[in-house]
């Protein structure tokens, strides 16, 4: 061992100089001290020395052993042995170089690594990209959720596509047969019918269906405007009627439509139910319009064969209408999303917003007594485009922004055995926050594990939210930083 051994004589010298007594007195004292301890031990007592430790006697049981050379069994008598149990203060003093180490649970390591991967440095572009991707995902799912509702309602209303399709087939006849004045009168009735049906439905569904029907109407009107037909209104109403009639009665399966490939495709696709629904109404509308324009009975008679043969034309029409509907939907939802965003913006209190905004502009940590948890609204791309600031948690902002250290509460010179962790423990109550001291003194420290003795370390003033021991996120963040700087 390369350990330097200090003899009793040296201790005596040191004690003499420290206590400013003569060496002889110190020597005598030491002898007496040891004698007293021995005396106490021999009396069977344990001897306790304040802030040093306790000397105890430990009984070792007699045991049998074998003489290696002669293979003779010998009995080792029981004996007392002096053991020394160091006092807590001495223990801590001695273990100071390793005081910053803590037991690590190894089995939880994989999850920890994952966390580190997920939330990496502030400047990581991948993370920002991920955030945006999540936003877009949310938006899409929202749209899907919204569009699914009306679809479901419509599905409920019409037990079969066939029923509707059947209806569609009948429309032309209906249109032509009835006179305009008559149809107007009936339309009013039908309107009422529809309204009562809508009222029956659940509130939220009602809203969405109402919107969708309005929307459909709008689209239909648009289409009709081109024609400048006086029947515009009535046509719109007939379509409404189409919606409502299937509810009233189920009609038998129409063989014509089973052969229709479009129908089969429609029935399989549930997600796009709504779009298809509108699409289905649209062709019929257009069809009826065309037929009404024709407005002559001979044509009507030819209608059935015409339909069969012009499946292709149908498909084209449907495709065209899908595109029209798609753009219409987009405009509609864009406006609705805007509305939603303004609502969300109101939710986030103005103070919080100003907080985050100011934090964004000047990344210097802002001391506030408590970490304010801002409800993170669902972000959309639209919103992000409008407002560059994403209203995220203010604490999260503190974490994400590069910290700038301008104020310092203290400064300390590195001595032998000094550690950033120990300083951190002293100033911030937890050794985990040493990373912030390191960050503030990065220019002077090349390696946080080996700091040159004599280096002046400045202890930065930190946002209390950042070093909240009770906030697990703070600890997590500090640990992340720790892993970044240590590895």
């Amino acid at each position: 061992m390369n350990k330097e051994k200090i003899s009793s004589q040296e201790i005596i010298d040191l004690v003499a100089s420290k206590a400013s007594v003569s060496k002889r007195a110190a020597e005598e004292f030491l002898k007496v001290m040891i004698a007293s301890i021995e005396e106490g031990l021999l009396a069977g007592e344990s001897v306790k020395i304040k802030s040093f430790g306790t000397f105890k006697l430990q009984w070792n049981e007699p045991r049998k052993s074998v003489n290696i050379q002669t293979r003779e069994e010998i009995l080792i008598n029981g004996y007392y042995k002096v053991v020394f149990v160091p006092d807590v203060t001495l223990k801590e003093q001695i273990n100071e170089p390793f005081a910053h180490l803590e037991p690590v649970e190894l089995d939880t390591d994989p999850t920890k690594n994952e966390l580190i991967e997920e939330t990496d440095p502030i400047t990581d572009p991948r993370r920002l990209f991920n955030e945006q991707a999540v936003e877009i995902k949310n938006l899409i799912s929202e749209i899907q959720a919204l569009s699914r509702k009306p679809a479901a309602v419509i599905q409920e209303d019409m037990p079969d596509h066939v029923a509707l399709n059947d209806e569609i087939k009948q429309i032309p006849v209906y249109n032509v047969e009835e006179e305009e004045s008559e149809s107007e009168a009936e339309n009013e009735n039908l309107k009422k019918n529809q309204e009562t049906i809508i009222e029956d439905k659940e509130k939220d569904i009602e809203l969405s269906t109402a919107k969708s029907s309005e929307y459909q109407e709008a689209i239909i009107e648009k289409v009709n405007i081109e024609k400048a037909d006086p029947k515009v209104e009535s046509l719109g109403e007939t379509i409404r009627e189409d919606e409502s009639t299937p509810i009233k009665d189920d009609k038998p399966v129409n063989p014509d439509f089973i052969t229709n490939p479009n129908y089969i495709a429609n029935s399989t696709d549930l997600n796009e139910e709504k779009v298809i629904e509108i699409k289905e109404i649209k062709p019929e509308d257009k069809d009826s319009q065309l037929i009404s324009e024709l407005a002559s009975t001979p044509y009507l008679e030819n209608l059935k064969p015409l339909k069969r043969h012009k499946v292709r034309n149908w498909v084209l029409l449907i495709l065209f209408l899908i595109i029209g509907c798609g753009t219409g939907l987009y405009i509609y939802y864009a406006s609705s999303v805007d509305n939603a965003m303004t609502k969300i913006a109101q939710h986030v209190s103005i103070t919080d917003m100003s907080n985050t905004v100011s934090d964004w502009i000047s990344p210097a940590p802002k001391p506030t007594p408590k970490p304010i948890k801002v409800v993170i609204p669902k972000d959309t791309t639209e919103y992000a485009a409008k407002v560059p600031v994403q209203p995220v948690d203010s604490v999260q902002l503190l974490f994400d922004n590069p910290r700038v250290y301008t104020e310092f509460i203290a400064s300390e010179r590195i001595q032998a055995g000094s550690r950033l962790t120990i300083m951190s423990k002293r100033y911030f109550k937890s050794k985990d926050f040493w990373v912030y001291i390191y960050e503030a003194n990065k220019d002077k420290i090349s390696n946080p594990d080996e700091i040159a003795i004599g280096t002046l370390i400045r202890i930065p003033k930190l946002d209390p939210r950042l070093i909240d021991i009770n906030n697990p996120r703070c600890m997590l963040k500090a640990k992340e930083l720790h892993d970044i700087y240590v590895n």
Partner: protein
Amino acid sequence: MNNKELITSIATKLNAPKSVAAILLETTVATCAQLLMEDKTIGFQSFGNFEVRKKDERLSVHPSTQIRTLIPPKLVVNFKQSNILKDKLKDMPHHE
């Protein structure tokens, strides 16, 4: 025997006031701690050696939960009695 009793015992043997004995004891303890922190071995003749030993890091497995924990290394004070003290204790009968 606690700290007070030890001081009393020393004081009576030295024929010195307790306060002096207390100060001297305190100084000795502080000196010893200081020397130990400097990673030095202290040998008291006829009594024993104080030494700082490094306990290496180790893996501990919790018997019931099977959670493996890495225990960090640490420094501990170790006392080894001298043979003289051992011999003195040898003749001590086993109480109990």
